[in-house]
Each structure stands twice: as structure tokens, then as C-alpha cells.
């Protein structure tokens, strides 16, 4: 089930919240668990067993690790078991066919691919459950003695299938004791609505323009031009950002309504000034996961430049691979690994001295090209599209279609670009200052009231528009489902 759908928004979520608020605290986790399992089974009726298995194994190993006390050998054994089991399941279901096909391609063998479907959200919940056993080994979290609580943590529907990757340490205490209040409902609700609007009104609409441009690049007639291809790349960038960050907004918002405080996952990544900056702002829960559980255990930057470069390569290779079982994702990860290393050791300092605008353009160029690598898992299609973008496709620089796309979507594109920058918080701050600068008490109050009325009207208008789009039900994918 996706959040931005009628069954979820008008039935699943209200029903879940009503029951959840009504029952006594002791039962709340069980209500949440029941709804989460239904939620998962809605999209994956069979593979739900896989999730139950993984959580049961990590829960048991966690208990055993706890029992082992100070016996480091045993603790290490249980951790190793947990990591091996989790990664094997992930590896088998996500990467087996990729491996088989790569072997076939390299050695000319003809092993039949297994043709397994990718269980929804497996990459996310595997990383979540691993964070528990690893942190437990490091003695950074307490052992969880209630299996159902542990399962509630992993399967909690707001973050189950597309992140953020919530670590056990983040919600550990709140699983047992949390404040569920009206303020949380309002703050969480507002956050959820923001995400919903972003997903339906920006991600889906800009995404459909990307689909049109992408199709025209492969149609073989004269539909594409260099500038359209760049516009398409920008559209996909915006689509992916809004899609994924909206999902995180909705997850964080619903978590808040349920009494949980998840960490932020995005911080206006498209407004970055460098590649390093971009990765501090994009999918934060994933990059910190790799930092804490791979990069630092490997030695990080403490063992000299050469080892650091090796560690960076490993981390970025894995980051790429995590996103999908295809070569383009690995290429995408390594692309960033190399750029980050270069930024760190070659031009990072020079970059900081450039005018801000140039720094933004530099970062923009890299992430837009990066997402094109990301979107084509067929290498020949990727090459074809990049050729067009860089003027090697033998197509004109501009064409009539470009004008048509702009005429039809100008407002949407401007809105999409503006909202991707921290304009809203800035505007809110400016308005507050402006209101308070006015003269006469009545006037401040009047403008404050007028402003909040406008805000209410805007939200309600957007809510109706969103519902209209959902009822019309045209184009509503969730990109990060694949990972």
C-alpha cells in the first residue's frame, strides 16, 4: 500500500489512528504491529514470512548475545551469525540474479536466473534490523526482550518500506515509553500533509513530464533535443527528490502522530554547494548508516590517505550496490566516491572560494548527471541519453517540443525548483519579522490572523487537489520501492 492512495489515506490510516489512540498504552504496540503487518501483506502477501524470519533471528541472536555477558568470543559469533543471515537473505533475494547474469556475461555460461521478485522494502528493513545487533554488540543499546516489540520496531508501517532507516537506538526507549499527545498529532499531521502534497502534486506531475521526455529520447523520430534532454534530467532529479523526501516527510509525520521521533532524512539536498554537502543532505539515514557501520569500522580516515581512499571506495561501491542490483547503480556509487575523494584532496578548498552561485551550479551539474546514471539500468540506454545531453546524439540544441513542455509546465517547474530550496522556512522567518515590525498593536494582530487564515485555506485547497489527483489515479509510482 502506498501512502498517497485512497485506501491508505481514507481508510487505513484513520482506522489505525483511532484504534491506536483508544486502546491503553500497553496494547498500543500490538495495534501498531497488527496494522503494520496488514500494511506489508497488502503489497507482499508471501514475503512477509521473510521479514518475520529475519526479525526472529536477530531478536534471538540479540537475546543470546545478551546472555553471553562478557564473553567476547561468543558475542562476536552471534553478531557474525546475525550479519551473515541478514546479508545472505538480502543477497539472495536482491542480488542472486544479478550475480548469475554477470557470471553468464563474463564466462559465457548459461545459468538460468532464479526470477525472484524483490521483496518490498527488504533493503530498508534489513539495514534496520542489522543496526540492532551491531549496536547491541557495541553495547550501545539495551537488549529487547519482547519479540513483538522488536517486530513492531522493524515492521512499523510509516518507515517499513521506503525509509528513513530508523536505527533501533533511535526508538528503543520510545518503544517502551512515549508521550502520545495532541501536539504530536498536530505537528505530525502537518508534516504528513506536506509530504503528501509534495508526493502527489510535485513528484507525480513532474515525473510524468520526465516519462514523456524519456520516451521521446528513444522514439527514433525528431522529438528530442539537447535542451529537452537536460530538462528531462532536471525533471527526474526533482521527481526523485520529491518522491523520496515526501515519503520521509510522511513517515516522520506519522511517526510523530504515533509518538515516535524519527531523525531527519533530507535537508534540502538540491541546494547543496558541493558533492560533500550533497551527501550530508541526501538520504541522511543511509549515508550515516554506511559511515557508522562500514566506513568507521574499516578504519575511516585514521590509517593514512591510502587506506582512507580504499575505505571510501568500498563504502561508495556498497552505497551504489544497495540501491539496486545493476551496474549503473554501482557506477553511480563509484562516480560519487571518486568525486568525493577529489573534492577532499584536490579542489575542495578552491571550490569554497568561488562565488556561491558557481558552487551551486557545480553541485547541480553533478547531481543531475548523477541521477541520469541512476535512472537507466540499461547501459546502452544510459549511453544514448548521456550522448544526447552532451551534444553527441546528433540532435538539435532546441526544438518545438521543448517550447511545448515549457508552455505546459512552466509554473510547475518553477514551483518544483523553488520548493527544493529552503524558501519556505526563510519566508516564514521574514514574514514573522515583517509582521512584528508593523506599527500599532492591532495591525500586527490583524496580519498574523490574516496569515494563518491564508495558511489554512492553502492547506485545505491543496488537500482537495491532492484528493482529486488520487481519485483520478493516473500516475502514482513510488520510486524507492525498488530498493
Amino acid at each position, binding site marked *: *500500500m502506498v501512502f498517497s*492512495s*485512497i*485506501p491508505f*489515506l*481514507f*481508510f487505513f*490510516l*484513520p482506522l489505525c489512528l483511532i484504534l491506536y489512540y483508544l486502546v491503553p498504552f500497553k496494547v498500543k504496540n500490538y495495534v501498531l504491529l497488527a496494522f503494520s503487518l496488514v500494511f506489508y501483506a*497488502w*503489497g507482499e*502477501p*508471501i514475503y512477509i514470512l521473510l521479514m518475520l524470519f529475519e526479525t526472529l533471528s536477530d531478536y534471538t541472536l540479540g537475546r543470546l548475545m545478551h546472555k553471553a555477558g562478557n564473553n567476547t568470543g561468543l558475542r562476536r559469533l552471534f553478531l557474525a551469525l546475525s550479519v551473515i543471515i541478514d546479508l545472505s537473505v538480502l543477497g539472495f533475494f536482491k542480488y542472486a540474479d544479478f550475480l548469475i547474469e554477470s557470471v553468464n556475461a563474463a564466462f559465457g555460461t548459461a545459468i538460468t536466473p532464479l526470477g525472484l521478485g524483490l521483496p518490498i522494502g527488504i533493503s530498508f528493513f534489513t539495514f534496520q534490523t542489522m543496526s540492532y545487533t551491531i549496536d547491541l554488540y557495541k553495547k550501545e543499546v539495551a537488549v529487547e526482550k519482547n519479540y513483538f516489540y522488536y517486530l513492531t520496531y522493524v515492521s512499523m508501517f510509516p518507515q517499513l518500506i521506503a525509509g528513513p532507516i530508523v536505527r533501533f537506538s533511535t526508538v528503543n526507549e520510545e518503544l517502551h515509553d512515549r508521550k502520545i499527545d495532541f501536539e504530536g*498529532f*498536530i*505537528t505530525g*499531521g*502537518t508534516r504528513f*500533509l506536506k509530504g503528501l502534497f509534495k508526493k502527489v502534486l510535485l513528484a507525480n506531475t513532474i515525473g510524468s513530464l520526465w516519462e514523456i521526455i524519456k520516451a521521446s529520447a528513444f522514439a527514433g523520430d525528431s*522529438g528530442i533535443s539537447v535542451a529537452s534532454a537536460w530538462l528531462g534530467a532536471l525533471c527526474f532529479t526533482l521527481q526523485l527528490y520529491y518522491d523520496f523526501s515526501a515519503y520521509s516527510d510522511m513517515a516522520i509525520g506519522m511517526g510523530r502522530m504515533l509518538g515516535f521521533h524519527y531523525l531527519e532524512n533530507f535537508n534540502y539536498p538540491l541546494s547543496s554547494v558541493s558533492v560533500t554537502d550533497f551527501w550530508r543532505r541526501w538520504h541522511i539515514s543511509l549515508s550515516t548508516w554506511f559511515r557508522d557501520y562500514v566506513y568507521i569500522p574499516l578504519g575511516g580516515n585514521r590509517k593514512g590517505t591510502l587506506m582512507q581512499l580504499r575505505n571510501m571506495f568500498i563504502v561508495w561501491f556498497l552505497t551504489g550496490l544497495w540501491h539496486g542490483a545493476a551496474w549503473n547503480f554501482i557506477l553511480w556509487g563509484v562516480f560519487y566516491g571518486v568525486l568525493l575523494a577529489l573534492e577532499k584532496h584536490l579542489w575542495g578548498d578552491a571550490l569554497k572560494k568561488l562565488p556561491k552561485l558557481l558552487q551551486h551550479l557545480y553541485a547541480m551539474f553533478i547531481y543531475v548527471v548523477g541521477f541520469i546514471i541512476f535512472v537507466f539500468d540499461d547501459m546502452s540506454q544510459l549511453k544514448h541519453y548521456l550522448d544526447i545531453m552532451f551534444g553527441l546524439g546528433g540532435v538539435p540544441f532546441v526544438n*518545438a*517540443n521543448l*517550447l*511545448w513542455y515549457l*508552455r*505546459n*509546465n*512552466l*509554473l*510547475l517547474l518553477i514551483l518544483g525548483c523553488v520548493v527544493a530550496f529552503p524558501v519556505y522556512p526563510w519566508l*516564514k522567518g521574514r514574514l*514573522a519579522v515583517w*509582521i*512584528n515590525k508593523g506599527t500599532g*498593536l492591532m495591525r*500586527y*494582530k490583524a496580519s*498574523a*490572523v490574516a*496569515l*494563518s*487564515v491564508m*495558511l*489554512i485555506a492553502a*492547506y*485545505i485547497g491543496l*488537500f*482537495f*487537489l491532492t*484528493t*482529486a*489527483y*488520487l*481519485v*483520478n*489515479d*493516473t500516475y502514482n509510482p513510488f520510486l524507492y520501492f525498488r530498493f
Partner: protein
Amino acid sequence: MQNKDINKYDASFTAGMMSFGSVITVMMITIMILIFGVWFLIAPKKEFSENENRQLALAPVYTFQSLKDGSYMTSIQKYLSDHFPIRDEFMTFKTKTEILTGKEEINDIYIAHDGYLIEAYSEPKQNGKIINQFGKLYQDITTDAKNNISLMLVPTAVTVYNDKLPAAAPDKGDLKQLATMDTIYEALPEIKRIDCYQGLLAQAQSEKGSDNVSSLYYHTDHHWTTFGAYIAYRQYCEAMGITPLEESSFTKTVVTNSFRGTVYSKLNDTTVPGEEITIYENPENRLTVNYQDSEEVTDSLYNKDYLSKKDKYSMFLNNLHPLIEITNETADSDKVMVLVKDSYANSIVPFLVNHYRKIYVFDTRYYRFGPASFINEHPEVTDVLILYNMNTIDTDLGIGGIF
């Protein structure tokens, strides 16, 4: 000092007002979600959407298999969006907003000049099959009618009214339908080509700048108007050496002024005005119209019951029937025609009946036995006309039934 205090007080007032705004917002939206949820549950469910002219999704039936493969959940999703409260109003709201933000194409419909809503054209994927089927019809006929088979492919508004499309539209200045028509005509040299495009285009050009314009196509529907069909009828007569009747020989009647057709339904913008349907009747005709499937016999080419429904175009020849036998005692010849067609032809039949004593009208989407064998069993058939419009010819499943 005092001033500073006021500022502090007002900053907190502003903040308080903003969070008061959030409370109101979230509470109102929560209430609306609950209202829509309950409304959905208690509202009676329609089975058929007149507006969209389609059967709405039925409540899904649970089976373990459908649960396992996920189709149960997909059906629930479909059922919910098909029966959502005030669905049509939501669609209008969406369309209106999109037009306001500068959209000139929505759901493959161009918002064209002069109030026309025009369907975009996508190049056909099954030209080969179409050519094959028409060729097969020709080959399978063994009677004299074989020498008198003609084909009329009718371009749609996207071609004839191309200059009404919004600037820079992908179909603007790119008359792909004509190329497709040429491909089909040229592949079938043994079938007589009846080109109505030039006539329609000349008419469209002559109307330019004139105030008193007769539309060739409906503003809100994918069909041509009776007048559009009349222009094509003159082209047919010219090609066949028949003297066409003048427009003045017909009694024109405006049968409705509130027609909103299929193209309208794709947008569902309820603020689009309804339009007229005009019919042309020759008072001299003595008609017997025999619907072979329902065994209904009337003396009119129209079923005016449809005028009180959404689907008003269906009044022409009483919507769709596999086989209709039309006899006109006052026709100016004894010739007998077999007409293999889609719904476009329903508008041209009132003109053709003046020259054929009998017309057998086949809709091969529903007629299962193949018109060729029918023609072979009826040696009195002198002419065969195949008439399709260019927009549905590619998607029309009935093409497979022509042989």
C-alpha cells in the same frame, strides 16, 4: 524598553496564531478524511458511469488466490477510486487547476482554440493488420461487388482543425494521419480510394474569418458533425459519379443543445458548455430500419431516447448494432450497399440512403460471421464501402472481424 516588550509579546502572538492555524488545518482535514470515509461506506454505489461511458469497478470478491497474487488489493484500490464520493467534481477541480497553471494538453486532449477539445493522435501500431484485414475482405468476396469496393478513411479534428491546436503542440503542423492514410490506401490498390480530407479541409479553410461557422467536428466529442459527414458525402458522390443532394433538400433539426461528448468526459470539466446536435432529414424518404440483433423495426434512422442521456451521439442509428438493414423505397437507384464501419458512419448513413435502395450496415466489433460471406450469399449487393475514422482505426478491436 516598553517597545521591546511589545515586540516580544507580538512575536509570541504571531507564533501562537501560526500554531493555532496548524491546529485548525489538521483538525479540519482530519474531519474531512473521516467524512469522506464514512460517505463512501454509506453512499449507494453506481454500476455505470454515464459520464465516462464505462462500467465502474465491482466490489472485489475475496479468494485466497487473489489475496496471494495481490489482485485482491488492486481491485480494492480500483473500487475505491471508482466509487469515491463526488468523483466528477474532483475531476473538474483537477482539470480546472491544470488549465489555470497553463496546461494545454490534459489526458491526451488538447485545449484548442475556439472552444474545441481535440484528441491527440498517436501513430498506429497495427497498420499491417489493418491492411491485411481490408485486403482479406477484398479477396474473400467472389461476387460482382468485388469490383466496387471503396474505402473512406476519415481524418479527425486533429488533422482537419490542425490550425486550432495550441502553439508548439506536438501534433501541430505534423499531419501524421495523412501519412498513415496514404500507407493504407497505397497498400490496397484494388480498393477504390475515397479521399474526404481535401473536401473537409477546403470547407474548414472557407470558414475562416466567417462568423456563421458550421462545425465539421463536435467541440466536445471525437465524432464529426452531421455537416462534416455531409461534406464527406459529397466527396463520396463525386468519386462514385452520383449526383449529391443539395444541403437545402434536407430539413435540418437541432435535436439538442446540451451535448457533451466523449472528449469532454476525459476532462470532466463541467464548466464546458453543452453544444448542439443537428440532424439532416430528407422528408421524401420512406425508410424501413431493421435492427437484426434485436429484431426491432422502425422507420427512423434515429433513436431520440438517447437525447435524454449523456451519450447523445448514440441517437444516430440507435448506437451500435452488429447488422442493420436499411431500406429506402424512394432511393434514386436499386443499388444495394454493404457498409462496413465504425460509429463515424452513423452520421453519413442519412445521406447515403438517398442513393441506395438497401444498405446493410455492419459493425464488425459485434458482427461475428464476417461480412464477406454475407456478401457472397447476397449477390444483389452492388457496392461495398468501408468507412473508418483515423483515431479509432488503430485501437478498434473490430478490425479483426473484417473479412
